[in-house]
């Protein structure tokens, strides 16, 4: 479904991605793990069109996405939930959801999907007139998921959905991801919490300083020393 070949991205003189290859098949959940600055978020931003690739290709359902604007990529069914939730603080919960279904492909069924969102997260229905910025962190994460549901993705890009959330809220995150999977949505999941990411996914890629250093079944990766090394740093592992 998604094919990334030799993708490079630079921020000015700094190379954030140095030629990564990555594929995601329809219906799969794939994890992208690695330490801070490994290039996980940059990979997602390149797919959704927020940053331009400096080399390589991104193909989705046989079509090259390079050079398309983010709003054109959304129309193809790729929905990116960015790090830090990024809900609109001075729009109400209901308006935030409305914006989620802004693309032409999502606008048609927006009323029905909104009911589904409220059924999955009753808290959002209670607060539908409240400003997004007045919600708690956990509620904002629910709203970010609700907004992604409104967009009706074929491929969902999730950037650090559990970051900074209490364990009880992480349960909600897992529930929301399960909902998308049950709907047959393909998911590319970026997480600092490698254990969580690898339990939720079938396959995974380990990124280190902008390169894929390892890819395997998630079950294998979860016990692989290299995964933990990429978080702790090689040096410390050698020392122990």
């Amino acid at each position, binding site marked *: 479904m998604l094919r990334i070949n030799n993708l490079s991205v630079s921020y000015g003189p700094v190379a954030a991605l140095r030629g990564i290859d990555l594929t995601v098949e329809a219906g799969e959940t794939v994890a992208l793990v690695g330490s801070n600055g490994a290039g996980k978020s940059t990979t997602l931003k390149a797919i959704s*069109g927020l940053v331009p690739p400096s080399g390589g290709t991104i193909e989705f359902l046989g079509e090259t996405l390079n050079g398309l604007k983010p709003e054109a990529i*959304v129309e193809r069914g790729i929905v990116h939930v960015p790090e830090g939730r990024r809900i609109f603080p001075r729009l109400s919960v209901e308006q935030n959801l409305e914006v989620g279904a802004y693309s032409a492909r999502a606008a048609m069924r927006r009323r029905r999907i909104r009911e589904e969102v409220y059924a999955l997260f009753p808290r959002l229905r209670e607060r539908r007139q409240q400003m997004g*910025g007045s919600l708690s962190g956990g509620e904002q994460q629910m709203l970010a998921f609700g*907004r992604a549901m409104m967009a009706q993705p074929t491929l969902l890009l999730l950037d650090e959905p559990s970051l900074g959330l209490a364990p009880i809220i992480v349960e909600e995150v897992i529930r929301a991801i399960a909902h998308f999977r049950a709907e047959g949505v393909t998911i590319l999941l970026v997480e600092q919490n490698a254990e969580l990411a690898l339990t939720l996914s079938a396959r995974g890629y380990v990124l280190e300083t902008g390169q894929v250093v390892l890819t395997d079944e998630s079950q294998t990766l979860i016990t692989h020393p290299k995964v933990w090394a990429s978080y702790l740093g090689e040096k410390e592992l050698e020392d122990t």
Partner: protein
Amino acid sequence: MIYDQFLQTLLGGLAIGCIYSLIALGISMIVRATDILHFAQGEVMMVGAMTGFSSGVWAGNAPLLALIGGTFGGGLMAVAVELGVYRPLRARRVPLINVVIATIGVSIVLQNVARLVWGSEPLAYPALFETRGLVISGFTVSPQLATIVVLSVLIMAALAVFFRYSRAGIAMQAAAQDPDAARLMGISVERATVNTFAVSGMMAGAAGVLLGSLFFASFNMGFITGIKAFVAAVLGGLGSVPGAMVGGLLFGVIETFSAMFISTSYKDAVGMVVLILILLVAPMGLFGRAGRQV
């Protein structure tokens, strides 16, 4: 009869305040969406006054057509400067301060173009609205001032409805609050910015017709009015929509009363002194918040 005089002055202040509010709203919307301090907003208002004048005369003193002509004239002019000047500058990643300086350039160019097209003599607006005194429960009320207040309130109410319920309005707010997140929802931030200029220009254009009908329309009417609208926007808290409305009304009333109690010659100075005092007490303005929060 002192009470009557007070009411008259208050109504006059509210009417001129409504005009400041309409211009200030556009300034606030633009700064929220693009961080640009739009110093040419007063000239957009002037262009609205001129196109309103021309379409009113062309239609044989039809007030409604003057208002429509002014509204669209202002909107088109604002869109033209966004597409022709500000967007190309932003695309070249010019520092923001240079774009702001460009808005001053635009304001001077618009004044000169208006002088070429409409001449340098002030144009007397045809009597758009009823000028005979209107008697409401014993008080004589100027129908012109009352019409300005009513029309302004209607325009601002329409704006509030547009922002709250329309998809385009919600998308404009989303794009202003977090452009990248808005892009990920499929919103074209470029289009949202053009819409912002269009709506803010339309309000300024309508304000131009109202102001022109009160006094004259002239090529240089925009400068000082634009500055005052700026003050109104800052008074309410730059970037805040309710702040711009209240700031405009407040500034209009303060200015009018200072003209009555002190002197007409000092009313501009008194208004500015009040601004400085308010900013000393509430540095962020009445409804202020710090810039664009994400």
